[in-house]
């Protein structure tokens, strides 16, 4: 299973290296979302400052949607899904591999986006540990839930529209949790943030377990 996961993750990251989609397109998009929000909320700077953690995570979420769509569209082209089913790779391995690749890309994105926020919105950053742990846990949740529901949507002509529909309500708790944790960290009271991290941990575990077991049946039906 682990071997299969690494094989798949390696393949996905190599695809990214060769096509540079995440680097050239998702990242600028994320920055763009930040700028757009700044526009939409502009007149009131105080408002912007207070809303920063929420906007950061909304931006991450929308970018994650793009990264996930890319990760899945790669598998649904021209019979690749069948090829995967025939390959004898462990479905759980495929799932973990894809989660790993997406999470890696998201992690890079989050760091860069964080720098972007700090600069654009002039936010003072405190509570590093909490921030880092929140990022890790939230990223795992997003990647796991995203890959799972991505496969629900994949292979259908309506994939591009169905994925957001399924994913956004599911990721809402992650959005809230990560936002609250960030707020706590930035407000200098990390102890209020940790329960949220725990909650997201539960969520991430739920989706990883669901993925490990559910990915097989999902991959099944073309």
């Amino acid at each position: 299973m682990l071997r299969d996961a690494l094989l798949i993750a390696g393949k996905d990251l190599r695809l990214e290296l060769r096509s540079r989609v995440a680097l050239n397109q998702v990242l600028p998009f994320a920055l763009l979302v930040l700028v757009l929000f700044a526009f939409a909320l502009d007149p009131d700077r105080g408002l912007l400052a207070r809303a920063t953690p929420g906007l950061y995570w909304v931006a991450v979420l929308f970018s994650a949607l793009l990264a996930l769509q890319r990760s899945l569209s790669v598998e649904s082209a021209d019979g690749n899904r069948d090829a995967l089913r025939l390959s004898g790779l462990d479905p759980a391995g495929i799932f973990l591999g894809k989660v790993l690749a997406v999470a890696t890309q998201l992690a890079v994105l989050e760091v860069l986006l964080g720098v972007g926020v700090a600069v654009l919105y002039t936010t003072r950053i405190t509570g590093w540990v909490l921030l880092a742990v929140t990022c890790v846990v939230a990223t795992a949740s997003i990647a796991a839930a995203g890959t799972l529901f991505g496969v629900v949507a994949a292979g259908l002509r309506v994939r591009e529209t169905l994925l957001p529909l399924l994913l956004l309500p599911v990721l809402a708790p992650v959005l809230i949790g990560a936002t609250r944790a960030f707020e706590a960290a930035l407000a200098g009271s990390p102890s209020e943030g940790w329960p949220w991290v725990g909650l997201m941990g539960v969520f991430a575990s739920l989706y990883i377990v669901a993925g490990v077991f559910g990915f097989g049946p999902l991959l099944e039906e073309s």
Partner: protein
Amino acid sequence: MRPSVPVPPTEAVIRLRGVVALLGRFPALAGIDLEVAPRRIVLLRGANGAGKTTLLRTLAGLIAVAEGQATVLGVDLVADRRAVRHRVGLLGHATGLYDDLTVGDNVRFWARAAGAEADDAEQALVRLGLAGRLRSVAVSRLSAGQRRRTSLACLIARRPELWLLDEPHAGLDQDGRDLVDTILREATAAGATVLLSSHELDRSLQLADEVVTIAGGVVVADTGMSAP
């Protein structure tokens, strides 16, 4: 047809009885009976929409058997159609390649996924004439026939026990066609079994030991296991 080889009295590789398979609600297979002995090359012929592709995909364990009994390589497809998948090799109408990876990357990835060695991948590339300039060209840049060749290379590298080929000659040039025939003959010599669909009768009839004609989702003619 090739001069017939005496059929060894072994268990059939494929055994179907009244197999019905649905695409949506449409019974693309409407009761197929078929028996294929080991090491045979069987040609599947029939009009467009007769159900050839559906039959091959069902045998590969990709489509559920809705009614009837089906055993492939000793695996009961009704009970567990996943168990057979890694033992068959399917060449479909679609190629299953990653557009943004190079030919070499693709063949190596699918070979490793099927548990083959890096060496097998290399040999397959050489065999299909992809080891030169094309090795490092992205698959999206290939011509139709080169794409088919890459897909064939992936298949060869995994050395399946049962080859299911959907119009394997389509898109290939003369050399490619001859090469396919050679590869299939070698495979049966090495103990594998081959089922191929084709609309190119001249060539395929030469290649095949046996011909099965389907129409409207049922077998309408079968030269049979014992036919010459």
